[in-house]
C-alpha cells in the first residue's frame, strides 16, 4: 500500500481541490484585473520616479 503525504494527495486531486475551494482557485476576473492594474500602475509610477529623479545604473 502506497502512503501519500498530504501534499501528494492534494496534488493528485487538483481538480477536486479547485472545485471545493472556488474562492481561492477561481478569483473573479474583475478582482484579478484590479490587482494587476494597481500593481502595474505602482510599477509605472516607480519607473517614472526613477527616471524623473535621475536614478541611473
Amino acid at each position: 500500500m502506497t502512503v501519500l503525504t498530504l501534499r501528494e494527495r492534494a496534488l493528485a486531486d487538483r481538480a477536486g481541490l479547485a472545485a471545493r475551494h472556488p474562492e481561492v482557485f477561481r478569483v473573479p476576473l474583475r478582482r484579478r484585473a484590479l490587482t494587476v492594474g494597481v500593481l502595474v500602475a505602482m510599477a509605472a509610477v516607480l519607473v517614472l520616479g526613477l527616471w524623473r529623479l535621475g536614478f541611473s545604473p
Partner: protein
Amino acid sequence: MPTSLPRLEPHRLTPLADAYAVAVRRKRLATLTLVGAIIAAAILSAIATEVRPGVFTDRIDEFFSYFGRIAVFDASVPNRPDLAGRPVLVEPSEWFWGLDKWSVLLADTLLIAYLGTVLGAVSGFLLCFATTHNLVRRTWLRVLVKRFLEFARTVPEIVFALIFVVAFGLGPIPGVLALAIHSMGALGKQFSEVVENIDMKPVEGVTAAGATWAEAVRFAVVPQVLSNFVSYTLLRFEINVRSAAVMGFVGAGGIGQDLVEAIRKFYYTDVSAILVLIILTVMVIDLVTERLRHALIGREERA
C-alpha cells in the same frame, strides 16, 4: 427582596480599614513623587537647554508679525507698486507667480516620498519575517535584523539625507535613500509586530502538508497580514510626503529647496504661497490614503 450586607466586627474591621488607609497613602505618595519627579525633570531640562519663558512672552509678537508679513504683499512685486501692503488673497496670480515651477517641484517631492515609501516598504517586508518569534527560531538572526531595523529608524531621515548629500551630491537621490532607509526601519518594526500576532493554525497546516518556510510565509502568513501591511505603508506615505517637503532644506531635492531659499531671502509671499501648496497637497494625500486605509481595515474586519 430586601438584602442586608454583613457588617464586620470592629476588632476585624479596624485592622482592615487601617491597612486600606496605609495602601491609599502609599499610592498617593507614589503618584505625587512621580508627578514631582516629572515637574523637576521638566524644570531642570528647561534650565539646561536655556528655555526662558520670558523670551517667549516678550517675542511672541514677532511670531505673529511674521505670519502678518507672509499674508500681505511687500513693495518688491515687479511693476505692481499698488499691491504693496495689500493682502495676498486679492491678487492670487501675483501671489502664485511661480506656480508652474513650484508644481514641478511639488511633483518631485511626491515622487521622492513615493520612491522612498516603496523602497522602504519592500525592504521592510523582506526583513520583517526574520525578526518574529513565531516564524524564526534562530535568536542571532532575529537580534541582528532587529538591531539593524532599530538603527534605520532611530537615525532621523534628515540626518541620513545630510550624509547622503555628502556622498551622492545635491538632488533628490539623497532624499529618496534617506526616506527609504527610515521607512524600512519603521515599517519593518510595524510589519513584524503584525506578523507576531497572526493565527498560527494556517502556518501549522501548510507546514504539515509539506510546505517549506517560504511557502508557509507566502500561503499562510502573507494572506493574513497583507491588508495591515498596505494600511501601514499608506500611513508611512503620508508621513513621507511631509518629510520630503523639508528634505530640500539640506539640499535633498523637492519643493523644500525653494521654500528654504524664500525663507532665507525674506520673500514672505513666496513662503506663504509654497506653504499653502504643501499644506493643500498633504491634506489631499491624507484624505485619499485615509479613505484607502479605512476601506482596507473595513474589508479586514468584515473577512
